């Protein structure tokens, strides 16, 4: 019964890692001898540090803003039960349908002052040309904006769902004790959904570390070269497809994968998120 899934797990979850590990030691033009030097060379590549810093800034903006806004919006949403609750939730997940290539397209339009629905706001900020926005130093903010709008809505709905699992008698007891809505949200609801927020934070971090589509599409077509090799994944892609250095590409992507796997193991064994489902030994 488990066989079909097991076959997929082995074939496309485990074997690719083994194959890539083998490839990561293969010789390349850059490193005719092959071996572990591929890893060092990937880290020493002149574009690596810049990409690392870019992704670092991206994560430093993206993860906290997701956590704060999602927690705030789901707590607020939880206070307005009744007929407007469902319509609000539905509107919040609308941006999740604009992902990847579509997100790039939509944000190109939104940030283009001649086309944007926000053109008045942009004009008030003194922005009348797209080139004022699309500069190297703004890229992290722009990519955060794209990723944030794509991801936040779904997570708001998910965390709102987490809030529904809080037993009513706990909230009732707090009200009887005289806690106001703010105190209930801050001192009772927030700690109770903490583990869901931690889980989300780690998932968002792991996904953000792998940022690729947005910078790749922007610099491949819209503003040529603006964000080339901007993220670590793009650099790995460049190694593989432009520099014929599959060994270096495999080395770099395995290092990124390792970080994500450490994050995964951390969630599973060092947080209480998966407690009680049979992961930990009794």
């Amino acid at each position, binding site marked *: 019964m*488990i066989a079909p899934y097991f076959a997929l797990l082995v*074939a496309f979850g485990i074997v690719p890692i083994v194959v890539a590990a083998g490839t990561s030691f293969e010789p390349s033009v850059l490193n005719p001898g092959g071996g572990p030097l591929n890893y060092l060379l990937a880290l020493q590549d002149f574009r690596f540090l810049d990409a690392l810093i870019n992704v670092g800034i991206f994560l430093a903006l993206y993860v906290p803003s997701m956590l704060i806004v999602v927690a705030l919006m789901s707590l607020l949403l939880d206070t307005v039960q009744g007929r407007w609750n469902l319509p*609000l939730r539905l509107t919040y997940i609308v941006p999740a349908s604009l992902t990847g290539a579509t997100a790039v397209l*939509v944000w190109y*339009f939104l940030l283009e002052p001649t086309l944007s629905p926000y053109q008045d706001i942009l004009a008030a900020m003194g922005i009348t040309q797209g080139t004022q926005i699309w500069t190297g130093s703004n890229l992290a903010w722009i990519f955060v904006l794209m990723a944030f709008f794509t991801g936040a809505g779904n997570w708001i709905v998910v965390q709102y769902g987490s809030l529904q699992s809080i037993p009513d008698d706990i909230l009732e007891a707090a009200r009887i004790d005289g806690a106001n809505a703010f105190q209930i949200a801050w001192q009772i609801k927030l700690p109770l959904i903490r583990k869901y927020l931690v889980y989300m934070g780690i998932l968002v971090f792991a996904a953000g570390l792998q940022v690729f*589509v947005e910078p790749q599409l922007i610099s491949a077509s*819209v503003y040529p070269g603006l964000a080339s090799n901007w993220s670590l994944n793009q650099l790995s892609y460049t190694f593989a497809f432009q520099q014929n250095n599959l060994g270096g590409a495999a080395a770099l992507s395995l290092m990124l994968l390792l970080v994500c796997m450490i994050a*995964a193991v951390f969630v599973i064994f060092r947080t209480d998120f998966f407690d009680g489902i049979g992961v930990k030994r009794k």
Partner: protein
Amino acid sequence: MTTTAPNETEVGTPHLTKITHHNLNKRTASGSVGRALVWVTLIVGALLSIIPMIWLIIAPSKTAPQLNNDPPFSFGSFENYVIAWQNLLTFQDGIIVQWLVNSVVYTLLIVAISCVTALLAGYAIAATAIPFKRTMLITTLIAMIVPPVALVLPLFIQISQLGLYDTPTAVILTSSFYPFGVFLAYIYFTTSIPHDIYEAARVDGAGEFKTFFLIALPLSRGLFGMLAFFSFSAAWVNYFLPYVLLGSAANFTLPVGLGILFSSTPALNPGNGAQQSVIGRPEIALAGLLVAIPILIVFLLSSRLLVRGVLAGAVKS
């Protein structure tokens, strides 16, 4: 009782009633300002959420000059959608139709394979005696938390070695690996269906498959909907994996094709492509809309599933 607070009238003792009243009076003073702030925040959030989508829906109704000159939310005409579509068809002999068909076929196959395998595996881990159950579960959880993007390059190396590069099979099979679905199914079969039912069926002499098909499957329609929802929304928009695993335009999906339109028409960058191209901004907005609308429709249709918390319902010890 002067204050109206229907939720708080069930308090039992007089002593408690007094405390509640005291706080209620204090609350109503600052409460209405707080209420207003809550609503303003929620409504601003809602507006920010739907403005991009509304703009994208309206955009192809306008001509390129209208897009530039008319107010952002003015509507052009329905005729312009048809014109934009006909213009899109001129791109590489109507290859967009092929992309659309590819996207539909790949996605349907991925949803079918991923949901069936996940349902079976989730059930097997939850309700049957299989060896290495815990290892299986932990491996699945790791695979679920690691973002799929992290495996794209290793998959590319493997697929190339297998000689499957640039084949639909490569995209369909690799995308059908669905650990999150297995996790959802596992949780469902361990928490929502009492374990005794499986035991009873077995005692009655039903084999694993019979138990699954006669007992578990009829009880898991809601689960199947949820699995299909997440599988569909990931497969339909996936960009990086098909982009890397496919090489020829005839095999591309709609999102990858959209990227091709970005780079080979002057719609977003006047420096690109042939200057006489009729693919402009209305056309490219329509192409983007074709990617976005099916996802939006599925989201709205599945809203019933999203009412119950995905995580909260799933992880409860």
